[in-house]
């Protein structure tokens, strides 16, 4: 038993020192330049990436608790397994006993694990999810920025309501690859000023409501630095909400987290988290009608 205890303690200490003492990998821009050519902000490594959302710490807390618990379970069961291998190894004169062993320790430890898992689910995860869902501002909430996001093989499209703050009509019959990917009806006065971009721009300090949908298959809108991950499903409009911290200004990536086809890995977009002034300036610039293309530009 002394050997088992030592093994357990050593394993927990090794895990704790690795988790708590190892400095985060400073890999600023290391993930994206190879793929998008743009410097990506934030820290990435073996642990959780930079968190720029106001709700992110709650997610991280649950993730940390789950990981610590899983580590304890892993080490405990692993040590017990090793103990059994050694203690009950084949020896001359011994015969295997096929009858069930009845021990109070194992029974109560299993009950303890089940109770702890229930606490994780009922005490942490469900309240957190309820809180996240309850915080979604209404469609007509003027204090929030509403963005419609459409996933398609293999691109993200972001639509903003424009100066009037009202989304215009859209329909599948208006969809045109390249020039009208979200099927805007430009004859609708509310839709005339709508902005569609391949980039995701958001201001800091303001609640953002993203309405997710998909044009073809199931995708997953994943923004690790915002601690956001939500499937997009054709025919459904799924809202999610978050607020970027004031300190979160920078350039990040939006990815697809659901295997969606042979170019799934290419389904990414750049996310620009900006101050309100910079965001407003971008909105004005993006709202201008597309420039006329001069044929001589090709020469």
């Amino acid at each position, binding site marked *: 038993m002394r050997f088992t205890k030592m093994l357990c303690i050593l394993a927990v200490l090794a895990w704790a020192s690795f988790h708590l003492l190892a400095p985060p990998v400073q890999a600023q821009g290391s993930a994206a330049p190879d793929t*998008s050519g743009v410097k990506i902000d934030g820290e990435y490594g073996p642990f959780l990436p930079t968190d720029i959302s106001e709700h992110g710490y709650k997610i991280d807390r649950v993730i940390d608790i789950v990981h610590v618990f899983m580590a304890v379970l892993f080490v405990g069961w692993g040590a017990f397994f090793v103990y059994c291998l050694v203690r009950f190894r084949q020896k001359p004169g011994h015969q295997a006993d096929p009858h069930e062993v009845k021990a109070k320790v194992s029974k109560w430890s299993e009950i303890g694990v089940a109770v702890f898992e229930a606490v994780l689910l009922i005490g942490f995860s469900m309240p957190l999810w309820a809180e996240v869902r309850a915080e979604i501002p209404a469609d007509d909430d003027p204090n929030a920025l509403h963005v419609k996001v459409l996933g398609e093989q*293999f691109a993200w499209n972001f639509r903003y309501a424009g100066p009037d703050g009202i989304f215009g009509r859209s329909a599948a019959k208006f969809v045109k690859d390249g020039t009208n990917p979200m099927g805007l009806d430009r004859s609708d006065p509310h839709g005339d000023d709508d902005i569609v971009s391949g980039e995701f721009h958001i201001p800091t300090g303001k609640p953002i409501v993203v309405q997710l949908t998909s044009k073809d298959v199931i995708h997953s809108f994943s923004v690790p630095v915002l601690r956001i991950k939500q499937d997009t499903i054709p025919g459904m409009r799924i809202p999610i909400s978050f607020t970027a911290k004031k300190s979160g200004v920078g350039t990040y990536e939006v990815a697809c987290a659901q295997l969606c086809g042979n*170019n799934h890995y*290419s389904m990414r977009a*750049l996310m620009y988290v900006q101050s309100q002034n910079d965001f407003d300036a971008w909105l004005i610039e993006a709202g201008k009608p597309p420039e006329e*293309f001069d*044929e001589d*530009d090709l020469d």
Partner: protein
Amino acid sequence: MRCSKNTITVIATGFILAIGTTAAMAEKTTVRGKVIFKGNAAKFKRTKLDTSKDPKCKMSKKSIGTYDVILNKKTDPITIRNVLVSIKSGLADRVFPTPNTPVTLTQYGCEYDPHVFGIMEGQELKILNGDETNHNIHFLPKNNDQYNFSQPKKDLEKGKTITLDAEAPFRVKCDVHPWMGCHIGVFKHPFYDVTDKLGKFEISGMGAGSYTLELWHETFGTMTADFTVAKGQTTDLDIEFEVK
């Protein structure tokens, strides 16, 4: 050595075809002209495309424009670019040899070059990637195979080579860059051309006779025009493409 009846027939047929083809080519018959836009040109404005989705696209070219309608408004009359002009009828059952040289389709600056082109049945089509980004080539034909493959790395040497069966113009697109598209017409003969920047086309070698041209445009659809060309002559043919 004895030759079978079939072998002799095949050789004789090939010989006759070769002579016929060579003779027809030697006549140097040509039809050339412009495709003139007839309609309200103000409705069609070519604009810059938003390629912000992939910053690597901007590294290759400063900007690219929409392709659905390209009008040459700098001349009078206004002409149309990227009209695929081909002989639709008049060639009877003549058979034409497949060129040995491949047609090259290059993805560069996140656009296809050429945007519209013709190719002969069985002729090699070589597809290259000139960009430092991933492209996905997705064929949308009705009769041919629906090729759908990626070219994740810059490759201006080897590329991928395929051949196609005859088919009316169909679209090829890139699933990664939704604005990217081109159109391919596959013919059983070599008598086709695509209008250039000035809306001009020229087709040679079809031999003396009366023919019908088919004009295909990705937005405006198709129309036909008849012409007659005499041995060793050039027929000038300016065609009005009416757009409602």
